[in-house]
């Protein structure tokens, strides 16, 4: 009897203890124990904020789908998604859905499945196009005999984003020279009279902020000197605008020694949104189920410099507080952390030489190529006071698959033929485009051949 009681007591204690332990882990920050498999490279930074994807413990595919769309829906719409969900919710495609249920992102992109995860987080065999396009060779004789796992090869097709790959686009860019006569990207107008600044002027800045209680804090002459040389100083953005932002509902602003991205967002909302959606800032995005620390190179899966592991990422880690040197942010800041062959080879590249030329003034603004030129490209925005150019801080927007870069970056300076071939050649990318591509993607040749086919004679329309 006594033995039974002891066994029961042990059993109850173990159950209560283990339940308590796991419950504590569940509500704590480190839920690594609950990870059921290595996450994809795209999600690993937020893998411990489980509820971002698993919005309900009793959720099924619909809830997961909503979570995917919440983060990726706008990007897909912007990319003019070639396979939107509505294509598959149409009853006439029910047989196709039975073969490949493309109504749900997780059909092709499962998480926590490292054993079957391919590039782009694809967890299906790469020949999935076969399921719907098996007779494509009838319309495109050039495709006869091609293996279906080559459809999505670099430079050919993409399931979602084909903005730089569709046939008429290729036709428009046939026979372009490898280097354009005026290789140049759009220039960001940083003057206080630019449309972007005018747009920001309506934002909640306290322009009377050089008050005694604030200037008393600005006792470091080096910092004041740095600030005086910035566009912030010229535009009247002073200490309190960044260090004493008024939080919602607060009447008296408190001094913050190290303002975060929220302070920058007061004026740079667009850049901040990109930062929070991208690799550098996604851990700081609001709406995460548990607060995460800022991203640090130590957490990265890409090779990083050992001496950078302790850094944490915020606006100031690249833009250098008080100095806000965009040139530093465009190259040196990147190279201070990233340590892969592509990054290391940049300094010997033609792109770097062009950047040096722009810095030295021997090449016009926009003619240099920094890390940011390609990975944080300039985008034209249409504002009420006119068009303006901003840097896109979400590097995912034009990174994977890398054909996304063609329109936003490469075509500013290069012909489409070279761009497609170069982006399809891993060795060229590794060398930071210091070599010419050795592979050739024949899509432009096929389009040209179709262009030469006699057009039909058009009868009268009446």
């Amino acid at each position, binding site marked *: 009897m006594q033995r039974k009681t002891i066994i029961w007591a042990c059993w109850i204690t173990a159950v209560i203890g283990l339940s308590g332990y796991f419950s504590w882990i569940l509500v704590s920050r480190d839920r690594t124990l609950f990870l059921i498999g290595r996450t994809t490279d795209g999600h690993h930074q937020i893998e411990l904020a489980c509820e971002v994807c698993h919005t309900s413990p009793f959720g099924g595919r619909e809830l997961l789908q909503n979570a995917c769309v919440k983060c990726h829906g706008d990007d897909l719409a912007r990319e*003019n998604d070639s396979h*939107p*969900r*509505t294509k598959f*919710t*149409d*009853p*006439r495609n*029910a*047989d196709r*859905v*039975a073969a490949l249920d493309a109504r749900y992102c997780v059909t092709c992109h499962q998480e926590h499945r490292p054993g079957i995860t391919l590039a782009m987080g694809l967890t299906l065999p790469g020949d999935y196009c076969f399921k719907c396009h098996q007779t494509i060779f009838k*319309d495109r004789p050039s495709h006869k005999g091609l293996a279906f796992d080559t459809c999505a090869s670099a430079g050919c097709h993409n399931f979602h984003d084909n903005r730089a790959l*569709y046939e*008429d*686009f290729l036709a428009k860019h046939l026979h372009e020279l490898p280097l354009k006569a005026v290789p140049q990207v759009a220039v960001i107008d940083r003057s206080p009279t630019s449309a972007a600044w005018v747009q920001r002027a309506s934002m909640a800045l306290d322009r009377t902020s050089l008050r005694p209680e604030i200037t008393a804090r600005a006792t470091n002459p080096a910092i004041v000197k740095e600030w005086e040389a910035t566009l912030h100083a010229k535009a009247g953005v002073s200490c309190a605008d960044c260090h004493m932002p008024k939080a919602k509902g607060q009447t008296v602003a408190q001094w913050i020694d190290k303002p975060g991205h929220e302070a920058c967002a007061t004026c740079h909302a667009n850049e901040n949104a990109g930062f929070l959606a991208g690799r550098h800032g996604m851990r700081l995005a609001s709406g995460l189920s548990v607060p995460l620390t800022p991203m640090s190179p130590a957490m990265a899966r890409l090779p990083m410099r050992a001496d950078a592991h302790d850094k944490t990422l915020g606006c100031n880690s690249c833009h250098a507080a008080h100095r806000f040197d965009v040139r530093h942010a465009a190259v040196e800041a990147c190279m201070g952390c990233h340590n892969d062959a592509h990054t290391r080879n940049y300094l010997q590249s033609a792109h770097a030489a062009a950047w040096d030329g722009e810095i030295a003034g021997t090449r016009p603004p926009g003619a240099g190529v920094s890390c940011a030129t390609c990975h944080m490209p300039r985008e034209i925005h249409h504002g009420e006071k006119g068009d303006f150019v901003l840097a896109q801080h979400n590097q995912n927007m034009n990174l994977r698959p890398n054909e996304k870069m063609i329109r936003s970056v490469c075509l500013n300076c290069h012909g489409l033929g070279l761009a497609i071939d170069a982006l399809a050649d891993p060795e060229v990318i590794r060398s930071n485009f210091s070599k010419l591509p050795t592979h050739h993607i024949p899509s432009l040749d096929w389009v040209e051949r*179709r262009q030469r*086919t006699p*057009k*039909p*004679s*058009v*009868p*009268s*329309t*009446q």
Partner: protein
Amino acid sequence: MRLTYAKATPLLVLAAFLASCDKPKETAGITPQQMADALHAVMDSDRTIYTRLVVNRLQNEEKIIKASEHWKDDKALPLPAQMFRYGSEMVGKKTEAFSYQLLSMWPVNKQNAPRTDVEKTGLKFVADNKGKNYYADETLGGKKYFTAVYADTAVAPACVGCHNAHKDSPRHDFKLGDVMGGVVLRIPVQ
């Protein structure tokens, strides 16, 4: 035989029951065919107006702006067929109460060729029988649908000009007034 109250009462109850059974038929709402016809009337009118008053006028008559399949890249007007498809996609996001597609036996995009038996039969019927619609029931993915097919006719020179000249069009002899395809509208039914 005398009709007593005792005998008449059950008959009256039965008559009242039958009358009440009949009542919902009068107020049950519209039939799937009526609903499909009404929806199509709106779609067809909007599509015709966009084609004639916007695309044909600005592109073909006044030559102010072109319409292009790649309207965003070309800074042009969306084609009438694209306007129609965008509407269909938006409806698909909003409701499952009905769906519709613009299909053709001579499609520019081969994905818009008829696939189901009803689509194949219906598109041929409306092309061969001008002015008539085609109605049928079909089961797709285990669900039953009332399916209506309506002729899609070339209402402006812009329609035939574009289709006849398009490199991917399998037919190049369309004339104004020709049936170029059809609208396939589906309503799920019990």
